[in-house]
């Protein structure tokens, strides 16, 4: 059921109920007035409750295309509801205790209610702003959404602090404990107010600069992700197409596969991870490279971890290392993949017995190792080490700290 705010008179509860039951809203309104009179006005409380609990039709419609519900902002009243609900439950508990005769002083009531509300608000903020959530891996756009929300959360968190401080001051004032220190408190409040007025423009500018810097960093990360993906997919396929130009059937097959992959990446917003298991995803990547490049790959995986965005980055980097080995050491025998997954860490080694290279002499325009392997791992909080010498093969070690299964 939804409130019909467009056809409603007050909040659209009667109109929504009429729509739900298939009855003319006027009849519902008449019935509501009669019930209100009969219950000496108590039905109004029911109306207010329905107003709070039942979502509005227009709000429900307009909320759909907006940010996901996990996004935070002023428009979302969930935190206020929790704070108000906690305060009212505290008030209810205090009233019950008072009725039961377990009571100290009436001066306790409002300070305790305010403190409970403020505490609930702070608890909600600490949950939203927890470092685990903020530092969790994710795409640049999801990180941007979290950070935009954090500014509003910080501001709202200030209300929680203010409520708790207000509760303490109210309690002290009610018990005449502020009498002797009233002048000191007033001076401190005036000083804080003046400081806030003086510093506000600087803080505002600092905040805007920080936001601009964050936005630029996020855009740069997004560009790097895009470049890495295009390198790993389109450019690698074009290299294969050049190599197999003599076989039109295989070229067409490669083009079809690449087109499918690119369309899915560009337009399918709800891309499912390739697998639920990192071990399976690594195996699948090895098989894929083996089939595309026709080189034998031996994969040994010990343990397993769930697939999240960090694990996907490990798989993508390992895949790029395998493609490089297949491209530059096609006749050097088997490529070896050894992975240790567990204890909150994924460690993957990709070895080949090819001609090797000097990592210091890789030209700047070759993005495979720098962006698709090293850059990608670093963007997700991991690291990649390349050990290679001309004539001695190459070993790439990928390490990522991640959540245990």
């Amino acid at each position, binding site marked *: 059921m939804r409130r019909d705010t467009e056809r409603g008179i007050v909040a659209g509860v009667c109109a929504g109920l009429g729509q739900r039951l298939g009855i003319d809203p006027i009849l519902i309104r008449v019935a509501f007035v009669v019930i209100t009179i009969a219950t000496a006005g108590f039905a109004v409380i029911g109306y207010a409750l329905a107003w*709070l609990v*039942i979502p509005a039709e227009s709000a429900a419609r307009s909320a759909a295309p907006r940010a996901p519900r996990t996004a935070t902002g002023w428009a979302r009243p969930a935190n206020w509801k929790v704070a108000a609900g906690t305060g009212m439950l505290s008030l209810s508990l205090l009233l*019950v205790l008072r*009725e039961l005769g377990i009571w100290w002083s009436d001066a306790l009531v409002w300070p305790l209610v305010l403190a409970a509300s403020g505490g609930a608000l702070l608890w909600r903020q600490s949950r939203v702003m927890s470092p685990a959530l903020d530092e969790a891996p994710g795409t640049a756009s999801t990180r941007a959404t979290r950070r935009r929300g954090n500014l509003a959360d910080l501001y709202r968190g200030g209300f929680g602090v203010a409520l708790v401080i207000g509760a303490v001051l109210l309690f002290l004032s009610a018990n005449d404990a502020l009498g002797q220190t009233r002048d000191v408190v007033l001076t401190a409040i005036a000083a804080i107010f003046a400081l806030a007025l003086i510093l506000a423009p600087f803080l505002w500018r600092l905040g805007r600069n920080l936001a601009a810097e964050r936005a630029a960093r996020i855009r740069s990360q997004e560009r790097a992700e895009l470049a890495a993906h295009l390198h790993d997919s389109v450019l690698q396929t074009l290299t294969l197409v050049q190599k197999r130009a003599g076989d039109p059937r295989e070229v067409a097959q490669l083009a079809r596969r690449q087109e499918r992959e690119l369309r899915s990446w560009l337009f399918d917003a709800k891309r499912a991870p390739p697998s639920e298991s990192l071990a399976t995803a690594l195996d699948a990547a090895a098989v894929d490279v083996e089939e595309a490049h026709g080189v034998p790959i031996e994969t040994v995986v010990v343990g397993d971890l769930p697939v999240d965005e960090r694990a996907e980055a490990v798989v993508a980097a390992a895949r790029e290392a395998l493609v490089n080995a297949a491209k530059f050491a096609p006749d050097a025998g088997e490529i070896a993949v050894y992975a240790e997954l567990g204890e909150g860490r994924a460690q993957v080694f990709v070895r080949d017995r090819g001609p090797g290279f000097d990592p210091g002499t890789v030209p700047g325009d070759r993005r495979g190792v720098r962006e698709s392997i090293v850059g990608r791992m670093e963007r997700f909080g991991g690291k990649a080490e390349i050990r290679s010498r001309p004539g001695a093969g190459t070993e790439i070690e990928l390490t990522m700290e991640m959540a245990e299964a």
Partner: protein
Amino acid sequence: MTARTDRVSLVAGVLIIVIGVVMMLDQSSDLELSGGVLAALFVGVFGLILLLSGLFEDR
């Protein structure tokens, strides 16, 4: 399309029915409740509904 139960509305409805029953018993003198207890009941139910509504909004 499958219809999903709105748990908050369901709980709110049950709580309001409970309040109604308590008030009815109070009116019919089967239950003697003071104004303080009734106020505590109203405020508590209202607060619980608000709290649940806020907590479930994230899910």
